[in-house]
């Protein structure tokens, strides 16, 4: 594809309760396969997607964190989490399945301005 745009995907929903988190991830993977630069920001309850120890077999769903672990295989390595979301939930980097960069509100506002296309899920 001739044109290229930078994509930011904001994933705000927790895993399993609805299809939003899975849809956000599928959109990120597909956009990366189209060779566009993709960053993901986990915000609000979306940070729960990254929590280690998920075992969704009992609710008959696939493990979202397993698919998230594939992000580096798609060259998606700019992963951000909202500092407020982490602090409110008492989470830190050690609780998560992937290394992420923690952003404060000003950082997030700047991130949005730095991307051509911003999609929220």
């Amino acid at each position, binding site marked *: 594809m001739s044109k290229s745009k930078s994509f930011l995907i904001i994933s705000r929903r927790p895993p399993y309760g609805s299809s*939003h988190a899975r*849809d956000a991830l599928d959109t990120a993977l*597909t956009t990366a396969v189209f060779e566009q630069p993709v960053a993901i920001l986990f915000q609000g309850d979306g940070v729960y997607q990254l929590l280690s120890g998920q075992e969704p077999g009992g609710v008959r769903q696939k493990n979202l964190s397993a698919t998230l672990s594939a992000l580096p295989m798609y060259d998606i390595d700019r992963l951000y989490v909202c500092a407020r979301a982490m602090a409110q939930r008492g989470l830190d980097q050690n609780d998560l399945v992937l290394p992420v960069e923690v952003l404060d509100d000003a950082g997030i506002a700047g991130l949005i301005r730095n991307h051509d*296309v911003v*999609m929220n*899920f």
Partner: protein
Amino acid sequence: MIFSLLVYGAPHSHQAAESAYRFAVSALNQGHGIHRIFFYGDGVHNGSALASPPQDECDLPARWQALAEQHELDLVVCIAAAVRRGVLDANEALRYEKPAHNLRAGFELSGLGQLAEAAIQSDRLITFGA
């Protein structure tokens, strides 16, 4: 200006699809182009040929179809989201060995790549979330 729209809500359950429809009409009336309207998540139900609201309520799938015919719009329903929710065209009905298909004329099933492509090719992507 060239727009693409992403519609995440089913008709009737959520207002998102109706908002998207009004936006599309307004943009076209102002002379703007619409590259694609992409239906994702529960939004795939906008492409059902079988939606049957009462006569005094808005039949959004029928309106989309009429708008598409009038303006040659590209209405794309996410194939993976659609087949999971039982919105199939003849080809997918055959692939999954189902007894019927129900994708409305004017819509087509295609992959998520069409959303990425739409975002790249359009000046603005507007999401109508649910």
